């Protein structure tokens, strides 16, 4: 036991003595570990974040396009719809006997970089995320008036809005400089609790509100000479002519496939209905190749880091022959000399792993807000999970495995050299 302690102690002192090369080796391993864990983390968290965004919705219906595209724009606010669907089709399907509830979704406007979504009160009643969690109000209540709005938590936090504030919605999805519907401001009626989903980054208004701000617009610009104030608009029939998509909750899950088939064969208009879970699976399939490629690159980079360590250790073998002979004279066994190299490799790899973790978490702390605002993906900063520990264990084991080469060489050499090195 003391012998082992002595060997460890000498190894550590020796490493400190060669601190510059050792540090560079550790740093190379740390960078590679950071990359490997980062890829793994993004992969897991992206999936988790996507999977947690929607639950309890049986079908999503939109204009006919790709199912992944429909999923992305309706749920994740990524990309845009190519076509709308008519309000009448929506009403027809909503009236089906097997349909329990529907949530209309009308997209295309924005407020200071956050997307605006037209919907109904059903959204606050039926939309759920994560493990069947309902939306909850941190402040206020759902919109009741045409010109009322409910803000996601991040919108309110980021822009510092409170109940009663008035906001102006811009036409289109640009951040600024776009035509604004500034003659018809919306009053904040409610602010939602954070959910960790794109809901946090959404400005919610009623579908009627969306119609209202567009009455005097045609295409992308204001109709000249036609300008109506909010009061006049309020008196009009604001039933929308079309919406972007809608979510469907069925009375029974069992009827999902039938409903799916019938909606996809809807006669009046080409519609696309998707099962969110299935579309998510398709999305994973699409990401799988990129994931595998990234993973392979990360693994190669780790192998490169460990090869660097191997090179460093083999190079040090010669200059440490004397040291090894001295230890032999004092009573170290050749196996102790071999163990020294193993311990050294474990030490360097472990330090590399720790530093890699530290770098990863620093990077996450720095990048989290950027990723959240730019990509709408919430990357939670939490303790490494089992899988990540397993990866670190694997890196450590690979380091130990790599070190068996110099360890074996050192063992054989010290057996041959004995107490005296003949140089």
């Amino acid at each position, binding site marked *: 036991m*003391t*012998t082992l302690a002595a060997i460890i*102690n000498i190894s550590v002192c*020796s490493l*400190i003595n060669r601190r510059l090369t050792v540090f560079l080796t550790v740093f190379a391993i740390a960078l590679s570990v950071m990359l490997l864990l980062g890829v793994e983390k993004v992969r897991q968290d992206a999936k988790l974040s996507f999977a947690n965004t929607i639950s309890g919705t049986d079908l999503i219906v939109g204009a006919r396009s790709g199912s992944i595209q429909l999923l992305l724009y309706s749920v994740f606010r990524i990309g845009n719809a190519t076509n709308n669907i008519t309000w009448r089709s929506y009403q027809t399907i909503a009236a089906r006997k097997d349909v329990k509830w529907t949530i209309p979704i009308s997209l295309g406007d924005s407020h200071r970089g956050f997307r605006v979504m037209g919907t109904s009160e059903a959204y606050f009643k039926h939309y759920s995320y994560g493990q069947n969690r309902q939306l909850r109000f941190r402040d206020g209540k759902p919109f009741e008036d045409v010109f009322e709005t409910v803000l996601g938590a991040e919108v309110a936090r980021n822009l510092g809005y409170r109940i009663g504030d008035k906001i102006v919605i811009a036409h289109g999805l640009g951040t600024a400089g776009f035509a604004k519907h500034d003659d018809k401001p919306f009053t904040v009626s409610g602010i939602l609790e954070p959910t960790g989903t794109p809901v946090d980054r959404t400005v919610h208004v009623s579908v009627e509100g969306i119609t209202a701000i567009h009455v005097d617009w045609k295409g992308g610009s204001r109709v000249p000479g036609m300008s109506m104030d909010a009061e006049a608009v309020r008196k009009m029939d604001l039933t929308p002519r079309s919406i972007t998509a809608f979510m469907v909750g069925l009375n029974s899950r069992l009827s999902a496939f039938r409903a799916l088939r019938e909606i996809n064969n809807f006669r009046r208009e080409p519609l696309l209905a998707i099962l969110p879970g299935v579309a998510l699976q398709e999305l994973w399939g699409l990401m799988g190749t990129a994931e595998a490629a990234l993973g392979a690159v990360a693994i190669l980079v780790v192998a490169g880091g460990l090869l660097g360590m191997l090179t460093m250790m083999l190079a040090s073998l010669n200059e440490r022959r004397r040291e090894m002979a001295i230890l032999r004279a*004092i009573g170290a066994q*050749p196996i102790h000399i071999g163990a020294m190299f193993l311990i050294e490799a474990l030490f360097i790899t472990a330090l590399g792993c720790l530093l890699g973790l530290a770098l990863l978490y620093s990077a996450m702390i720095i990048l989290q807000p950027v990723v959240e605002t730019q990509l709408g993906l919430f990357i939670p900063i939490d303790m490494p999970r089992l899988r990540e520990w397993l990866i670190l264990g694997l890196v450590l084991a690979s380091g130990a495995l790599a070190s068996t080469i110099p360890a074996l060489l050192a063992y054989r050499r010290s057996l041959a050299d004995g107490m005296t090195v003949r140089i």
Partner: protein
Amino acid sequence: MIELSDVRFRWHRDAPLVLDIPAFEVRAGERVFLEGPSGSGKTTLLNILGGVTVPETGRVTVNGVRLGDLSGAGRDRFRADHIGFVFQMFNLIPYLSPMDNVILPCRFSQRRKAAAQQRSESVKNEARRLLRHMNLDANMVAARPASAFSTGQQQRIAVARALIGAPPLVIADEPTSALDHAVRTTFMDLMFEEVTAANAALLFVSHDPSLATRFDRQVTLADINGATA
């Protein structure tokens, strides 16, 4: 302390014998000067006594233990427990302090650790005591790495290390060859004093006969070694 009988050694099966020693003995506490020209097999003999090299035939007994009865690891442990070595140069691990270098044998041998503790309360105290006796400043020996010390100082540190934990046998392999004359005398004085105080047997190897006078016995390798390489 040391008993050799019919020890033969060669490096390869086809190589000539380097050592062929019918009988050689060193008694406990005896200080023996072993002389021989360079390349005559002195270091090889010391390696055999330390159990690092195994003779082709014959019996090697050190401190009553037949080395041939021990395994490789057993011989390593035996060496750690019973023998202190001093070599011509490169005795110290350069990045460890003299203090840590001197303590090292106590980390490989419980026996020597216990002996050092018994002598001076703690291993560190004993190391300090030995270093002081070898004329090394107690303040300097813990702060700087061994590589910062002169060759003469390094050799004295090596003697302190060989003596810590009172091994019954000290083997010195040309420890003065790298020292100039003035330093050599001081070194020999200090070493002799301490080995005598520790009651250890000393096998001192050199090709410089002028050092032989103060030893109990002077042996020429050629006289005990039948092999003429």
